[in-house]
């Protein structure tokens, strides 16, 4: 069930330069959603922007959910002006959630930059269900971490930063591969599930380096420009192998797809 809900903004703050976190009270959507889904946000009552903007559902605590975004254009910029107490119209929850592998022996979550929010939700979901899970985050530096400096998660997850800056220095694929090798060594690779979300560079690196076929499951959450958000406009197609056509819709077939099946747009 999808809802059109006027969610009340509870808080809105800049957690890193250009990265914002907003909590909204949205009881219907919170009750219905699962990790990996997103909301389609009516940024403003005016015609600018014309379309809604898709944002992943980050953490869900009770009847409140978190949105975390980077300011990249008009819509994400206008969201920074929204004050607590006002309502934002949300359409959601939308899309297919991650496969919540409860029978795996381990779960490896790999986020790149602003790909983190849906994985944080998935991470907390697994933790709540007492299921072993590791969350890796790759960023270029501290300023890119989509978590506030006072966020307890900051010390709980594995952060790799290209610039170091007190974190493991390098690319996030390195600790991920190490972990997968360790899991292979102790014989549990075949019961391991991998979940990822991030820029195409990361997605592609994972596609090239991880031992897909030996994993129990490897999923990725994709982005694409969206019109409707509900499968109506056919606008959010991406190239994904294994369907009736070369294309699948991010909003309704996805955003979660098998990692091995996805292609960057234009590289069919």
């Amino acid at each position: 069930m999808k809802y059109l809900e006027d969610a009340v903004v509870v808080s809105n703050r800049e957690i890193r330069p250009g990265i914002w976190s907003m909590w909204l009270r949205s009881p219907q959507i919170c009750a219905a959603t699962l990790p990996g889904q997103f909301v389609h946000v009516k940024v403003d009552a005016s015609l600018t922007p014309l379309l809604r903007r898709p944002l992943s559902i980050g953490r869900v605590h009770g009847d409140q959910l978190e949105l975390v975004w980077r300011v990249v254009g008009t819509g994400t910029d206008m969201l920074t002006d929204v004050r607590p107490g006002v309502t934002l119209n949300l359409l959601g929850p939308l899309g297919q959630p991650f496969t919540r592998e409860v029978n795996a022996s381990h779960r490896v979550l790999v986020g790149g930059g602003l790909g983190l929010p849906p994985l944080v939700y998935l991470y907390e979901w697994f933790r709540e269900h007492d299921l072993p899970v590791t969350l890796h985050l790759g960023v270029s530096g501290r300023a890119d971490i989509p978590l506030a400096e006072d966020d307890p998660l900051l010390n709980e997850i594995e952060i790799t930063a290209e610039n170091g800056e007190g974190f493991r220095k390098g690319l996030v694929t390195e600790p991920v591969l190490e972990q997968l090798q360790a899991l292979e060594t102790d014989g549990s690779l075949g019961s391991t599930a991998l979940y990822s979300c991030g820029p195409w560079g990361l997605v592609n690196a994972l596609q090239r380096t991880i031992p897909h076929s030996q994993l129990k499951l490897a999923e990725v959450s994709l982005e694409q420009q969206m019109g409707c958000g509900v499968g109506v406009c056919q606008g959010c197609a991406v190239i994904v192998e294994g369907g009736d056509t070369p294309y699948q819709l991010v909003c309704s077939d996805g955003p979660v797809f098998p990692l091995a099946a996805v292609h960057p747009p234009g590289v069919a």
Partner: protein
Amino acid sequence: MTATASPDLSVILGSLSLHNPLLAASGCFGYGTEYDDVADRDNLGGFITKSISLAPWKGNDPPRLTEVSPGLLNSIGLANMGVEKFANEVAPQIVTGKSKAIVSVACKVMEEYEEVVALLEDVEGIAGYELNISCPNVKEGGMAFCLNPNITEELVARVRKRTNRWITTKLTPNMTSVSQGALASEAGGADAVSLINTLVGMAVDWKSRRPKLATITGGYSGPPIKPVALAKVWEVWNAVKIPIIGIGGITNWKDVVEFMIVGASAVQIGTALYADPNLPGQIAADLREYMRNEGVGSLSELTGSLKTDRGAMVGVPA
């Protein structure tokens, strides 16, 4: 959200009567059920399905959408499930309720239009067909059918022979004379004409020097095309006798009234539905208030009521 039932918003388009003049435009309301969770379909007088072809179509390469504030460019390319799946799995669900289901048909060759319509004739409850002969985003067929009035007339006439149901032709603004297309449709036996489909448009990223759509050009829709659409409806109103369905950039009740004043008997709402699938319910309520406030007895009196006598045309008071 459901508006009070009075005043009556109904309109009649030849053999088709609608409980209100608001239709969802093709491509902007899916196959009819996708918004059911969040919007009451009965707030619409009717809806046009995504264009249906004979075989399923995969559509164009992504990216297929880009916003050009405050409008939209798309290059979907009529991606759809094909008539067979549509007739068997979807159609039965959409022919219920107050809102009339009109199926949009788009094909690459004339014979296919006849075939698709023939197949749909078996589905009870379909109120009519919109022949999409104006899509700018497909290589074969599409807009080409509309650009040649002889082909338009022949195509409509051939489909006319296959069905007694109501037919409207969807026309393109990307031609010198849209009224030629409308006249050809009328001559072929169409019950109405729908206009406008999208304008050909383009967007480029200055930095990467790449087009923003994989197909390079796409179809331009939304508020910026309204002035063009109004001019086309007015042109066609002065050319044909069959009812006109106005389309292009409608986002509120005033837009609806404006389209009717220049000649439309009903309207379609497209792009704006993505922002607010409940918009038709809101507009219906607003139209009722407008009728009460302005003492409009029936919406049909708006159609073509543009006052063009120069004598009394006062622009701005000093």
